[in-house]
């Protein structure tokens, strides 16, 4: 599968004129003020920008966790803002994998059970689910850690469990909000190499928020946000390519 989009590909993600407002009246503020962004199958996009510039907000919208106040979002041509809660849940279940900034693993739950969770919602049979989850854990280098709970794992290990949970379903898109935010630079590079591998080997489209230019360097495209708007959008040769 090619990591390079061609002009004829239908866009996977198509945001046009997306705004997002919070609050109402004088207390109201606009987190997004008209974002146009198109991402094709197989791209590796890094989103950068100052704190409060709307990066997490756009990630939540792309991840179908939130809906735009105005504007439209098409995922694989589907108008997401017209879907109801359950239909958006289906999109998250079958198309998207999320890696959250704060890991967001279930506490007092083993790494294996955490990774199995999305497969449970997909309704996979027991044995297959277990095997896939163990494979995913092996992919992120956590062989032998399956029965450990998050409190028994280091930050880097927890982040890798979170990544395993996001990719275990082979989603169309991997969304990662500051996946290296809590890690030292050596661990960060490990995680980035892993994400790059998914992008290149499995053709998973990656959208990643990061503050660090070193991490953004892994991406094939860097989008800068400023004050709720796209300030710049540059293609580059990813570090690994």
């Amino acid at each position, binding site marked *: 599968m090619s990591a390079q989009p061609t002009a004829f590909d239908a866009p996977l993600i198509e945001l046009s004129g997306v705004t997002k407002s919070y609050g109402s009246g004088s207390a109201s503020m606009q987190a997004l003020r008209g974002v146009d962004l198109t991402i094709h199958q197989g791209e590796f996009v890094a989103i950068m920008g100052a704190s409060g510039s709307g990066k997490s907000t756009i990630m939540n919208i792309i991840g179908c966790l939130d809906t735009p106040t105005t504007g439209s979002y098409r995922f694989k041509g589907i108008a997401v803002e017209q879907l109801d809660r359950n239909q958006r849940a*289906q999109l998250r279940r*079958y198309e998207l994998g999320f890696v959250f900034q704060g890991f*967001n693993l279930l506490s007092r*739950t083993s790494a294996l059970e955490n990774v199995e969770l999305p497969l449970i*919602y997909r309704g996979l049979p027991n044995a297959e689910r277990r095997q896939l989850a163990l494979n995913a854990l092996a992919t992120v280098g956590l062989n032998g850690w399956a029965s450990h709970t998050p409190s028994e794992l280091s930050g880097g290990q927890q982040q890798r469990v979170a990544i395993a949970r996001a990719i275990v379903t082979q989603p169309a898109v991997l969304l990662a909000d500051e996946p290296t935010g809590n890690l030292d630079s050596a661990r960060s590079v490990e995680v980035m190499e892993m994400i790059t591998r998914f992008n290149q080997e499995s053709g998973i489209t990656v959208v990643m928020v990061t503050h660090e230019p070193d991490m953004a360097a892994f991406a094939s495209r860097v989008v800068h946000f400023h004050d709720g708007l796209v300030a710049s959008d540059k293609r580059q040769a990813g570090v690994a390519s």
Partner: protein
Amino acid sequence: MIWNTILLALREIRRNVLRSFLTVLGIVIGVAAVIIMVTLGGGVTVKVGDQISSLGSNLLIITPGKRMGPGQVSGAGPFKIEDATAIAREIPGLAGVAPMSSRAMTVVFGNQNWSTMVSGITDDYFSVRGWAVQSGREFNASELRSGAAVCIVGATVQTKLFGNQTAVGNRIRLQKIACEVIGVMEAKGQSTMGTDQDDLVLMPLRTFQRRIAGNTDVNMIQVSAQKGVSTEKVQRDIERLLHELRHIPANSENDFNVMDMKEITKMLTNTTKVLTGLLGAVAAVSLLVGGIGIMNIMLVSVTERTREIGIRMAIGAMEREVLLQFLVEAIVLSSFGGLIGIVLALVGSFAIASALSVPFIFNAQIVLIAFLFSAAVGVIFGYFPARKAARLDPIEALRHE
């Protein structure tokens, strides 16, 4: 999907064993209380019925005097032996008529003495009461006719006066008269009212009248109806006959009383049934309280687990899956509590029943009802917290600390 949801719920319960146990404690206690109350109540009802029917089947007891209240009798002339013979002659469908006269007395053997109830009886007594001698023999016809100084003692009197030695063949003293013990009755144990039925001495009615009472009075006539004969009809017939014999004016009240033991049985077993129902209802309230306990914990756990719910939704859980998970958790918890309660109740009521020497009667119906009720408690009290969880906004839930 249901199976997966149950799996998730079970994992959650296993993760919080102690809290889960405390959550269901209310249900455990409620279910156990209901089952124990109803099981023991059923046992007591059966025991009361058994004890009364051990008095003799189809028994009617005729006493002089108006019934004033429990145990109280207003002064009225006693019966005579002729009344008993008239009843035996005139009333159809009787199996036996047993006139008797009693008095509390002290009986003496050697240097032992014992206060007991001494009764003069006829040979029908044994069949009417459905009671037999265990050792020795009953009175023979000539002893009954002539008023011989012979007696039969109850099991209690046997032990109190003779210990392990047999009473039969010995002479005991009753005031002025010495009387030979010719038999010992079978032990009957306590009556429903708690009196010792074995604490008595029996002698021929004629002996009692001549040597002890010094009159020809009869204090009580016990009558047994033949099998299949309506005791209500016998009761009415006896009332009519005695009304006539005792020359009672047409519109005044009878100065005697005919009690049908069947009615008393019915009355007493009804009373215990009502009591059982009442206790069961009180116990059911504790089940309800247990349900509210579950709701409380589930609500707390929804707040506590808001972030978890957010994660599940972000991963793709739908509203009804979250709802179902919480609901299944509540149902599994409460029915699990119900099961523990059932086991506890069966062991408990078995132990209590044998301690109170009440029969243990397994009541499958109440066990089933209690179980279904506990599951229903899970549904009803689990629904509100589950809906609360399902309605959470995923982003808000993820932000929750």
